[in-house]
């Protein structure tokens, strides 16, 4: 079949990759491995370097130091058009002068182009829209064309640069699910960049959390969420209660008669749950999560409890 | 980056060869002396520049500046209401704009000739006036400074109208509504809100008109006759009939210098042409 597929190891390997611009250091000593066939997310706040890292992998930037390996071959010196990596751009970057079919066929050469284009369009439910132009499509349709255009190339690795950020919240959740299904069906490794931690947790097999040009932690969602290795990772992936060195998530904190005493300062209705903000007798603030019908009122005295298994200890 | 250098090369070479090198040569010539059979030869001399201070030539320069200034002022006076009209003309804006631009797209030379036809002693204007019995002798409308100014205004009016229109078009109508809300009547709004906000367009238009007017050759030659000698005519003369290239070179550079000074004075931070 495909000679590339005989490589066993990770599809992407970054070895101590750094990128320095004139004004600042965008990426510092990043090393990671992306397992073949997985959905891998790169999360972090704006400015953390994730977009630069993506561009380094795609080939639009060259590393200042370090190496980029794709399926056992070094690619960091190769231009983008010689790498078996394709990108779905944040703005989709559809060619305005070409039709949907023209866009999807752009990177293809050979006799089987039209078959492959038809198959890709079918995979993304775009059949029937071949002769439309990008400005005649909805946002969701444009994204699917961008996906089809990249996937038809059958890359070893698909890079997605914040693909959901342009969509409204309702559409976002729907497309999220479709992306996950697509990845499983097609089997290609997805490298997904986002600043939305919820998305990353929901979609990924593995998450890498970045902050200030460095990768802070890599691991499966559950591990990164429940066993964060730094305060930043803990705080970034969700709200966290800190009492000295001990961290515990609000959803792990319940109201129980045998807990520590606290006074309720505020109660926040979140629809599916209630967050009860309280002050411990030792002065720290704490947030507990309860069902909406069991919420106390501000000013009341309560007792908060959590299990030590849910604790995280970080300096 | 490679494609960028390959693509830039022809244009860079061409531009330098047709612009920078010739000007450098003119610069060098301006410091040499007039050759026996035209052209230039050694020794080096500064007298071409000192000669420019001679009252005869100084007068020519001052007159050129004066005429260019009047022409520019007239263009502004006549062009602003026209630009205002177009900006406020509603859905047919493009038509009115096209009617201003269209004559400009035809030949400048022919447009200048058109005024010859109208202004000369046996031209249309005089023929009509005499025929209507309003005058007995033809008015000397052609071959004077006035005709030159008229020709310049006619020729360069679109250069003033276009930037003014562009600025007026971008003007937020809500500002005028706010002014009216605060009690300003139309003329006052024009004076206190519209005009100040058009400063950029006025500056651009003034420069686009003044610099070519300063260096005009055709208009003064055809419409001014032998009486109106401006810098452009002087320079042309030195390089052809008079065969005094070094002096012509010095005059050219002075003209360039004045134009550059004006452009630098008018440039504000952040404005870019290229």
């Amino acid at each position, binding site marked *: 079949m495909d000679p590339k597929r005989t490589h066993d190891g990770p599809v992407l390997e970054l070895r101590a990759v750094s990128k320095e611009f004139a004004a600042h250091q965008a990426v510092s000593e990043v090393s990671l491995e992306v397992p073949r066939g997985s959905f891998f997310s790169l999360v972090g706040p704006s400015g953390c370097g994730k977009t630069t890292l993506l561009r380094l992998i795609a080939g639009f930037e060259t590393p200042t130091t370090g190496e980029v390996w794709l399926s056992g071959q070094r690619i960091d010196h190769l231009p983008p058009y010689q790498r078996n990596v394709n990108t779905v751009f944040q703005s989709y970057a559809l060619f305005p002068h070409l039709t949907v079919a023209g866009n999807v066929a*752009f990177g293809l050469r050979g006799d089987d182009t039209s078959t492959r284009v038809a198959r890709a369009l079918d995979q993304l439910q775009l059949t029937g829209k071949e002769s439309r132009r990008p400005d005649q499509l909805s946002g969701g349709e444009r994204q699917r064309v961008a996906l089809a255009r990249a996937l038809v190339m059958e890359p070893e690795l698909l890079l997605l640069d914040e693909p959901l950020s342009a969509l409204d919240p309702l559409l976002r959740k729907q497309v999220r699910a479709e992306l996950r299904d697509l990845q499983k069906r097609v089997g290609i490794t997805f490298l997904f960049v986002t600043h939305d931690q919820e998305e990353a947790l929901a979609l990924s097999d593995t998450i890498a959390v970045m902050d200030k040009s460095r990768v802070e932690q890599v691991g499966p969602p559950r591990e990164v969420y429940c066993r964060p290795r730094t305060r930043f990772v803990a705080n970034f992936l969700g709200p966290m209660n800190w009492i000295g060195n001990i961290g515990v998530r609000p959803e792990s904190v319940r109201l129980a008669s045998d807990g520590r005493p606290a006074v309720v300062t505020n109660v926040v209705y979140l629809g599916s749950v209630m967050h009860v903000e309280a002050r411990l007798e030792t002065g720290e603030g704490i947030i507990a999560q309860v069902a909406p019908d069991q919420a106390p009122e501000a000013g009341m005295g309560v007792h908060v409890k959590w299990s030590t298994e849910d604790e995280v200890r970080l300096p | 980056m490679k494609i960028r250098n390959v693509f*830039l090369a022809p244009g860079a070479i061409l531009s330098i060869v047709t612009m920078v090198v010739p000007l450098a040569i003119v610069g060098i010539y301006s410091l040499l002396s007039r050759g026996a059979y035209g052209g230039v030869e050694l020794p080096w001399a500064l007298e071409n520049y000192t000669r420019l201070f001679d009252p005869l030539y100084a007068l020519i320069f001052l007159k050129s500046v004066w005429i260019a200034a009047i022409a520019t002022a007239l263009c502004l006076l006549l062009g602003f209401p026209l630009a205002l009209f177009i900006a406020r003309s509603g859905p047919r804006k493009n038509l009115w704009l096209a009617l201003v631009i269209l004559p400009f797209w035809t030949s400048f030379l022919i447009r200048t000739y058109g005024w010859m036809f109208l202004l000369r002693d046996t031209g249309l204007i005089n023929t009509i006036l005499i025929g209507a019995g309003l005058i007995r002798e033809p008015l000397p409308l052609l071959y004077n400074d006035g005709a030159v100014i008229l020709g310049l205004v006619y020729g360069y009016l679109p250069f003033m109208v276009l930037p003014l229109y562009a600025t007026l078009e971008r003007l937020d109508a809500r500002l005028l509504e706010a002014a009216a809300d605060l009690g300003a009547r139309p003329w006052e709004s024009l004076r206190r809100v519209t005009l100040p906000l058009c400063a950029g367009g006025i500056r651009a238009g003034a420069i686009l008109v003044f610099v070519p007017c300063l260096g005009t050759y055709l208009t003064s030659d055809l419409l001014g006759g032998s009486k109106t000698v401006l810098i452009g005519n002087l320079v042309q003369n030195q390089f052809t009939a008079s065969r005094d290239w070094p002096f012509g070179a010095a005059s050219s550079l002075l003209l360039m210098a004045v134009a550059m000074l004006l452009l630098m004075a008018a440039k504000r931070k952040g404005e870019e042409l290229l």
Partner: protein
Amino acid sequence: MRRALPIYAVFAYAFLHVPLLVLGIFSFNASRFTVWQGFSLDWYRAVVADHDLVESAANSLVIAIVSTVLATIVGTMAAYALWKRGSAWVSGSLYLSLVTPEIVTGVSLLAMFQWIFRYLNLRLGMHTVILAHVGFSLAYVVVVVLARLRGFDPSLEEAAMDLGATEFGAFWRVTLPYLIPAIAAAGMLAFTVSIDDYVITSLVAGIDSQTLPMTIYAMARRGVSPELNAVSTIVVVALGAFVLLSERLRTR
């Protein structure tokens, strides 16, 4: 003011168009004098029969077409290069050619050519005129194409390269199609500027390269004549039609 403006506009537009309209009307005048004495096509017949005039018109066309093609190609390439990464030298030189008075450009080119001709056995002729025209048209082309490029999303080229196109391939297949309207507009601009140029051309033309503006100027110098009216009308109508047609094609 609402009423004053349109009234003023009428006069302003009359001022702008009357000279050309008058020339057109009187080109059909049977008489030489500025009094209407009947309709006639005599002057047009005279124009067509004037060999020197027709030859100069042909020269002008050749010069305009050649210089436009060259200036448009070179200028588009330069604009693209400047868009990717600016160059103060080149931008400065192009800016200089836009703001230098024509007479100065003309004499300086003449000086350079004469200096070159001391070492090469050449004379002024069509080639010097074409070179001069390409020189001053270049800046116009760059300005027009660069303006269009500023509205172009660079990630489109990246997407093309991502999909396997080389840098040139990305330019050729994605950027160039986007630029076509601007290139057409620039070409039109370069053509009209070239065809109408008198000052620079007259200084660098040789004996065998008379252009139409030079012929018209010589006729105008001799005074008003109905043949000149006829030539003027032909030129104005032809250029006007060309501009309108190009606009129509461009914005289709």
